[in-house]
């Protein structure tokens, strides 16, 4: 046993440069896995709070059964429950305002007749819900007489940032300074005034009390959640009641999807790390065949050889993992620091140091060392099969490559077909499998394809470096060693696939989001009912309001929505009545199947319905189906003429029919939502004043400047996407370094050959060109394959979101691909630079001797 270690150690030390490079591969594998996980929980949590905030919800809300305030000690009990991620206590009371409190105008309708004074613990509350501050700052623990309010409240009461909001309280009228502004309130209920908990306790004269506890749980698993809720009830006693986020709700689904994507990225990182390490050992075995043969000839048994390679793997695995842990932490820290400024402002991530749990360290070590040993297993096995003859008559075995290449090519074709099948089936659950199949398929097909591709690129390079004829030499080198070339190119492929996939998903995600948001909310003005989530609870207005709005000078278009509740196959459906022509002009629907022209025409002429993504997947509805809607007058059959989604109703099962039909079948003719566009050059101030006058009689509607709203929200999305890009970079940068590493090893491996070239009269310049050409050919092949695989994976990911009812349009990441090609070339050249320099400086005599 000790002998294996000695030999392993000698080989490692004997080729320091190589050892450093290969250990680096392990370091990067561990770095990605470990580093990503140190900030992933923070990130996922932030994402979660963000989504929660968008819906104004937390996992669990605890109140006293009869609504009384209680002692904060209960909070400690909740926090102590296993499974509670974070819990915050707050004190909330509705403050009813005297008539004309804000507008001091007895003639005007009071739009704000009450507000909720909410005392919170600023630090903990931000961990629960992402408060998206658009102006000023959030509350800080020591604040006194400071309040944070929404943009809409600020407008209604006419205060600005830094201004004063006076509220009647238990201790008289108090002036609060507005220190921060939140986005417009779109949720039902009264406007909230946020103050610190101690402030609220003072103002409401309830010293040392809270009346609500909000908690977020640490799991998305439904059974676990129920269990934790049960435990909370047991912990606090029967005097309290728990309200919980409904299981299976859209928010949970969305968060799960996001986590799935994150897991996929982690998996890819692992796959790549393992692959790089595998490649390393494969190279080690390949170039050491002669030594291994000699050892065998002298009486080393197969298991001795196997252990020698594994011992090497273990040493490198341990050293690499240790370094990877340290660097991963540092990298995670740096990424977090990068996100901090944005994080603090928009995402409200409380960033400290990366989170390192003992289990993460253990997992990383197991993965790092384990993957290394595992990756070394196959090469070790093949090393143990090296016959003594290898030492004496080398270069046996080149013959069988052709057969293997042929076999693996067809195996690859089969896997590719499977991957394509998964793509067609659009099974969300198979996304990960498809990604693996696709990469494995390409890796398998690579050996057979490498020759023709190398020939092609060799030809191209020959044109470029026409004069010295060295490109052919490089191409020849690759064709002679297709195995090695395959592995190097495959590593590049995975690295590039990661980049392209990220680009696909992120471009599609961000553009789709912003597009849909702009389409749905981007009209000049919106008249919003108190709640968007529950259309049915809104009181609408008779059609004459729309008519009056249209008559206001400067108004170009008024599109309204009417609502009725219904059912398709036991699925509750919100039916929205639209004016097809007007709605069409707003372009609010994003079609995933069906064509807008015929769909809107059909809506006007017959009982036709457009269903949204969530509904189509919930009720299994396809384009062209006939569906039966439950109406107050009996069942009615509608033809599905399109599947399309708008932003506001993206998450609820919704169908769109004409207002004529909703009147005929559901007897509804009140408008609950208005979208208004102005004529070009209309005087906004004047139009707005006219709206306000008109809306005095319709206090149920809130006037909203759509464009401004979109702008405000876009900042939030930008921040989310920026963090996603940061994470993509986190995965991509090590991949690229690993690729450079692999290419560099490929050159190092050939020191002797290069020495021979120099010996027979190749100039330094020629040698440099050979190496450069080779690296470029390899990275070109890898990049080409990587783009293919990445496009597939990106498309799969986007389609998966879509299949889950999330409105996404696949956007071909053209710029992503261009940059990938550029990156491929740059890194290919970069990879060649150091080894090329070294090769040209090579001492010919040294190279021709033993290594």
């Amino acid at each position, binding site marked *: 046993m000790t002998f294996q270690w000695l030999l392993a150690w000698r080989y490692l030390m004997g080729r320091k440069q190589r050892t450093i490079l290969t250990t680096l591969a392990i370091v990067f594998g561990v770095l990605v896995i470990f580093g990503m996980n140190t900030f992933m929980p923070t990130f996922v949590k932030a994402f979660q709070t963000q989504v929660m905030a968008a819906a104004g919800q937390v996992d669990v809300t605890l109140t006293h059964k009869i609504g009384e305030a209680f002692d904060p000690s209960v909070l400690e009990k909740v926090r102590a429950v296993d499974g509670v991620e974070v819990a915050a206590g707050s004190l909330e009371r509705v403050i009813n305002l005297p008539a004309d409190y804000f507008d001091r105008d007895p003639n005007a309708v009071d739009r704000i007749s009450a507000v909720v004074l909410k005392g919170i613990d600023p630090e903990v509350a931000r961990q629960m819900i992402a408060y998206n501050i658009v102006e000023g700052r959030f509350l800080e623990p020591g604040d006194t007489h400071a309040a944070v309010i929404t943009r809409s409240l600020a407008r209604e009461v006419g205060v600005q940032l830094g201004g004063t909001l006076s509220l009647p309280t238990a201790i008289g009228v108090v002036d609060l300074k507005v220190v921060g502004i939140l986005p417009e309130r779109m949720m039902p209920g009264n406007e909230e005034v946020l103050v610190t908990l101690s402030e609220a306790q003072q103002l409401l004269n309830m010293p040392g009390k809270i009346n609500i506890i909000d908690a977020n749980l640490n799991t998305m698993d439904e059974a676990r959640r129920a269990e934790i809720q049960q435990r909370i009830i047991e912990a606090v006693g029967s005097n309290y009641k728990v309200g919980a986020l409904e299981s299976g709700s859209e928010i949970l689904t969305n968060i799960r999807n996001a986590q799935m994507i994150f897991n996929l990225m982690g998996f890819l990182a692992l796959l790549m790390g393992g692959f790089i390490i595998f490649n390393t050992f494969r190279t080690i075995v390949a170039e050491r065949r002669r030594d291994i043969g000699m050892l065998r000839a*002298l009486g080393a048994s197969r298991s001795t050889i196997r252990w020698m390679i594994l011992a090497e793997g273990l040493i490198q695995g341990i050293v690499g993992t240790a370094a990877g842990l340290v660097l991963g932490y540092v990298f995670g820290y740096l990424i977090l620091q990068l996100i901090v400024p944005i994080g603090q402002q928009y995402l409200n991530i409380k960033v400290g140091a990366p989170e390192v749990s003992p289990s993460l360290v253990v997992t990383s070590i197991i993965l790092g060392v384990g993957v290394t040993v595992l990756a070394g297993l196959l090469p070790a096995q093949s090393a143990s099969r090296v016959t003594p003859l290898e030492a*004496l008559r080398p270069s046996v075995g080149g013959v069988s490559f052709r057969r293997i290449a042929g076999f693996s090519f067809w195996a690859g074709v089969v896997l590719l077909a499977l991957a394509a099948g998964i793509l067609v089936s659009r099974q969300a659950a198979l996304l990960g499998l498809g990604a693996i199949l696709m990469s494995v398929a390409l890796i398998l097909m690579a050996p057979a394809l490498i020759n023709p591709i190398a020939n092609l690129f060799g030809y191209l390079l020959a044109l470029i470096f026409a004069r010295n004829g060295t490109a052919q030499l490089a191409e020849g080198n690759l064709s002679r060693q297709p195995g090695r070339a395959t592995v190097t190119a495959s590593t590049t492929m995975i690295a590039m696939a990661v980049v392209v996939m990220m680009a696909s998903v992120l471009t599609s995600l961000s553009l789709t989001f912003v597009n849909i948001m702009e389409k749905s909310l981007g009209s000049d003005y919106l008249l919003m009912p108190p709640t968007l989530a529950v259309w049915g609870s809104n009181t609408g207005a008779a059609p004459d309001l729309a008519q009056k709005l249209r008559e206001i000078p400067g108004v170009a278009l008024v599109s309204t929505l009417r609502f009725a509740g219904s059912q398709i196959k036991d699925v509750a459906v919100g039916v929205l009545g639209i004016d097809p022509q007007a709605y069409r002009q707003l372009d609010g629907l994003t079609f995933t199947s069906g064509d807008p022209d015929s769909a809107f025409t059909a809506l006007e002429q017959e009982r036709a319905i457009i269903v949204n993504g969530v509904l189509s997947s919930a009720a299994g509805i396809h384009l062209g189906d006939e569906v039966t809607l439950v109406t107050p007058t009996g069942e009615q059959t509608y033809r599905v003429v399109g599947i399309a989604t708008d932003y506001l109703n993206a998450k609820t099962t919704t169908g769109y029919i004409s207002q004529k039909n909703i009147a005929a079948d559901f007897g509804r003719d009140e408008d609950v939502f208005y979208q208004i566009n102005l004529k070009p050059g209309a005087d906004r101030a004047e139009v707005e004043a006219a709206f306000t006058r008109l809306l005095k009689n319709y206090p149920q509607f809130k006037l909203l400047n759509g464009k401004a709203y979109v702008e405000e929200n876009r900042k939030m999305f930008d921040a989310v996407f920026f963090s996603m890009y940061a994470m993509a970079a986190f995965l991509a940068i090590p991949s690229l370094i690993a690729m450079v590493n692999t290419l560099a090893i490929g050159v190092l491996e050939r020191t002797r050959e290069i020495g021979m070239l120099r010996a027979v009269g190749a100039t330094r310049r020629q040698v440099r060109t050979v190496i450069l050409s080779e690296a470029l050919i390899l990275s070109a092949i890898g990049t080409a394959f990587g783009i293919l695989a990445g496009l597939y994976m990106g498309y799969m990911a986007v389609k998966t979101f879509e299949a889950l009812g999330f409105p996404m349009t696949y956007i071909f990441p053209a710029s992503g691909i261009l940059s990938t090609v550029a990156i491929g070339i740059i890194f290919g050249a970069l990879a060649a630079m150091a080894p090329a320099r070294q090769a040209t400086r090579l001492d010919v005599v040294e190279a021709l001797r033993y290594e």
Partner: protein
Amino acid sequence: MESMVVTENLTKVYGKGETAVTALKGINLSIGQGEFVAVMGPSGCGKSTLLYLIGGLDRPTEGKVYLDGQELSTLTDNQVTEIRRRKMGFVFQFYNLIPVLSALENAALPMILDGVPVARAHERARLWLERVGLSDRLDHRPAELSGGQQQRVAIARALAHEPLIILADEPTGNLDSRAGDEIATLLRQISSEWGRTILMVTHDPRIAAYADRIVFLKDGKIVDQTHLNGNAQEDTRTVREKMEVL
């Protein structure tokens, strides 16, 4: 005399079909214990192949090899490996040494592989390196040695664990005549004084003349055998004449 090596109808075919090369065609050879046999013949006649088959490094296409009474083809890979480690010493034509090990460690390799304590293995290796004249190169790596020095390390390695049989493929090929003579004398001594069996391939009639018997190979067949009488000059002349005939 008891036989250390016996081959029966030993045949080796490389490759298949049209490109098949028959390297050995039914070799029947018997080498006695303590006998020193040299194999000669033109390049490509199958000398190395014969050595590899006897050394259990490759498997014959047909025929059998008995070593110390055991038929090699009936043994498992691990058993053959163990025999190589314990009973055989090899000197190959090219690339003999492990590049990352020092001369001393290379020479001690078979013993280390066999589990001999390092101190003892090194002691023996040092002794044999001194005998081949490398006492001042113990800690050098192969890359720091000349071709001839590398070959001498290989010889020390083949002898250090005192195997029953030594298989040497051109052991003196890279040495000058004086160094070659020293090695040949050493082999002669090992054979006559310690009773080790030696099978040596060589091109050099002068070196072959140290052997007890010379086997002449041509196109994979034994074409002639000569027992030598121990007179170096006479023997060398005989060998020269025979070689010319081939």
